[in-house]
């Protein structure tokens, strides 16, 4: 997933300028990492360079001058093709928790305690997300993003639970690999 494609997607609704694009992005994807202005402008310039977007003109409404961008035919094709592609299911997920458990074993720490503390942190975040989505007046995009995050955290938790049950084997294996 790239900022390019998100901006192309937002431009599909009609010409827009950088500030507005950033705001619309944050509205559509409330739980995502917010876009930085600088990132928006450099990405727009690259889109123009590649012929996917073009400058429509400038307007200023009394404020500072703003450049309006619009989608080209090529850009339109590009974004449609991208959205139509099936996202490849991740073959390997970067698993920081796993790395830390192994390092804890290597450094002679208590992996079980680590997993328990991690569980507490996960649960805390899940409570926050649950509170967020069940708060009166929560909008649909918030609920959907919270659901996505909750399910991923839940997957982490389930992985931690089974890992907890397999800690003895994991410790033995880690020590053996180290010795070899």
């Amino acid at each position, binding site marked *: 997933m790239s900022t390019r494609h998100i901006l192309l997607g937002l431009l599909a609704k009609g010409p827009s300028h950088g500030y507005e694009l950033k705001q619309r992005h944050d509205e559509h994807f409330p739980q995502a990492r917010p876009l930085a202005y600088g990132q928006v402008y450099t990405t727009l310039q690259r889109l123009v360079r590649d012929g996917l977007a073009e400058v429509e003109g400038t307007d200023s409404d009394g404020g500072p001058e703003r450049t309006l961008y619009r989608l080209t035919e090529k850009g339109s094709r590009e974004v449609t093709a991208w959205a139509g592609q099936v996202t490849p299911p991740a073959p390997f997920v970067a698993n920081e928790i796993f790395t830390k458990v192994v390092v804890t074993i290597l450094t002679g720490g208590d992996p079980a*305690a680590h997993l*328990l503390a991690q*569980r*507490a942190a*996960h*649960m*805390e975040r*899940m*409570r926050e*997300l*649950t509170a967020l989505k*069940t708060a009166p007046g929560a909008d649909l995009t918030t609920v959907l993003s919270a659901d996505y995050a*909750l*399910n991923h*955290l*839940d997957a982490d*938790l*389930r992985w931690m*639970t089974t890992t907890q049950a397999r800690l003895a084997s994991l410790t033995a294996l880690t020590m053996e690999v180290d010795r070899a």
Partner: protein
Amino acid sequence: MSNRPAPLVAARDLVKSYGRTPALRGACLEVGEGEIVAVTGASGSGKSTLLHCLAGIVRPDGGTVTYDGKRVDLLPEDRLSELRRTDFGVMFQFGQLIPELTAVDNVALPLMLAGTARGTAQERAEEWLERFGVREQKDLRPGELSGGQEQRVALARALVTGPRVVFADEPTGALDSLAGEQVMTALVGAARASGAAVLLITHDATVAAYADREVRLRDGAVVGAEVPA
């Protein structure tokens, strides 16, 4: 952990075996007034047995259970029944509704058992059904309801007497995630509104996330420290 409200329900060193299978080995738990506590753990970790002991459904072999400062594990059977009707609301994964009674009669039943006239009981039952969005289904029998509707009716039945504690054992266990979400939102919302405490048994972390804190059981005892809110 220091500012937790005074415990409304408390279990100390509970021990309980079924035949030769130990279900609880020294479990301790406190639930404060208006607090929502999730008990999680693998199947067979003693979650349900803990709830049964706290709700006075089974007597522990050892240890104490107190409710509002009184020893629950020493009460005679009919006092326990009464307590479960008046101060406690109980909800299970399924089976708590009488299959032959309509939704509204199922909800009205605890009130009728307490001596409320049928008409009044039904009116109050309908208010609860309305609140949980199942009033239209009031004349249907449990078998004619969807899983989510059935659990919301069960929730209405658990809450209709205005209990101070709700014991919910896997209330979403048989539901898909969306129906489960509706039931949990209804349960938590109603408990917060009325100030009822909730003891929630679940194996599902997304359900446990509705609670104020999580207590984890393993092999019939609480794992590590309780997680602070």
